């Protein structure tokens, strides 16, 4: 019995031991889930179709696109004025405004003004707090 449970761990390959066990467990659990949830998995096409039909595509994909653009632009813009955090500040102003507008239901003067003010004030405040008070590097 002792021989059956005896294990020797080779230090050189020890980094693969635990991930290997976890991978096997995940595969086993995956198969069990596939069997248990087979009916639901078979009907998943309709499930995802329903999600995409109900989805507010403009707001969902708009948020994703704006976020992607925000992340991509921050460093190049920041490189124009290095070590100032202005890349973060400038991109954040546009991003907060864009997402705020995207989330608005009625875009009239009365509802847009708070969005504009937030887009100007919030990033500036955060930028000042982190760069001037906390001395942290921003892009």
């Amino acid at each position, binding site marked *: 019995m002792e021989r059956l449970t005896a294990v020797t761990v080779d230090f050189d390959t020890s980094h693969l031991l635990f991930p290997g066990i976890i991978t096997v467990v995940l595969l086993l*659990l995956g198969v069990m889930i596939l069997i248990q949830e087979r009916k639901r998995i078979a009907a998943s096409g309709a499930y995802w179709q329903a999600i995409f039909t109900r989805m507010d595509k403009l707001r969902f994909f708009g948020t994703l696109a704006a976020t992607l653009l925000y992340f991509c632009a921050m460093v190049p813009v920041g490189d124009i004025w290095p070590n100032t955090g202005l890349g973060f500040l400038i991109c954040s102003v546009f991003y907060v405004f864009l997402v705020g507008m995207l989330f608005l239901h009625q875009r009239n003067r009365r509802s847009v003004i708070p969005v504009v003010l937030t887009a100007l004030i919030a990033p500036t405040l955060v930028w000042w707090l982190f760069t001037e008070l906390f001395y942290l590097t921003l892009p």
Partner: protein
Amino acid sequence: MEFFDLISPLFVALVFAGTVVGIVFGAVPGMTATMAVAVCLPLTYSLGLANGLALLLGLYVGGISGGLVPAILLGIPGTPSSITTTLDGHPMSQRGEGETALRIGIIASLVGGLISLLILYLFAPTLADFAIRFSYVEKFLIILFALTVMAALSSNLLIGIFSGFLGIFISLIGTYDVSNGGNGEYRLIPPGTEYWLDSGFSLLPVLIGLFGLAAILEEAEVGVPEGQKADDIKHDQQRKFSLSIFKGQLTNLTRSSCIGTFVGILPGVGGSAASILAYSNAKTFSRHPERFGKGEPAGVMASESGNNGLTGGALVPLLSLGIPGDSTTALLIGAFTLQGIQVGPLFIGNNPSVWNAMIFAMLLANIFMFVVMYFAIRQVARIVTVPKQILFPVILMMCVIGAYTINYGIMFDVWTLLLFGLFGWLAIKLRLEIAPFIIGFILGPSAEVYFVKSLESFGDLSIFFTKSWIAVLLWVLIVASVTGSVLLSRRHARDNGAD
């Protein structure tokens, strides 16, 4: 540093600010205490451990408590932990007793918070003293137990366990850390990404993505529903509030607070389970169970003392074993990591003043929560009308700054945030369980070290069963939690079939 050196006007001000901001997060439907802590975590970089924890604990208590406001006034739980508050709180509001229901909920929250704090203060050091004696074997089994308990309480046991193991799997990406006795070799890294994934994914961008970005994507998916108008909120027109409404409810309050605390001690179980369990017990033991769900004050008391009971309870496993009690306390690990402190059995003994400061911060947060919500009840009620188009973009920006500054300016962490934000949204759609995933992700590297080192030391798998009576007890608990869950799900399936 002595306890009194840590307590300063800034410390008190941070607890107060945290509590108020937490109440706002809790009161806006779609925003949670976890999100509040995730978003404000970067603010703690320059505050030091005690002051940082003061802010975060205030956010935690405020966030859990604020959820009762929309639950009662609008019938929409502000946080998942307020689900059962809607059942009786909203009917009370509809019959013109909204303020009364709010005051009941606020007092019950205070009672729940204080009882759980007392249990935390008494129980955590004892458990930590006991846990110091644990070897790698027992530590590994505790993590396994934590994962099975979480999975057992998931809506689907298999998916719960899968989610936990997936979290462990993703946490293992990167180098097998030499400082933990590893060999410094890469594993699970796709070719070409070694530069970025050398240390794997950072904890905080993952957490911020899962709890910040994913929640906002969920809201965007449904079109970011408009907030309520101030006119929608009904205020009480009649008599003054009297504490006599609590007459005969001491047992209910104590029981519900203790249930909440106990649920909090179980790793990874959220406030919703605490309030549901407390509520169903209050209903079972009530002389008038038929009144529950129709505006019974005892229901609000049970729900709110239950979910606030969670706050102290969830800190017990965190501070004594290093295992987070819920997703919000998982984020608190991030605050400790930022300050270079590892939580675990040695934490309280090695940092008595920080421990006392945490208890004091929790006490202050509960008192501030009560004072702010009770005496500014009409102003607090207006929080539910705060427009999301103002809040959400700012939260997204705070998520980005949190992810970017965690490792002092690494853009890959920002992309991690986006990756895990999307994963979080997808996980909800796929019905994966986020809580076990997070706990798996946090504890995965420790589980690996404990497992591999146990085998290296003893060279035999049977050591996990024979090391000590604690190991045997933990196996009994693991088997019991899995068996219990299987039996429960079969009963549910049978009941559903019978219906």
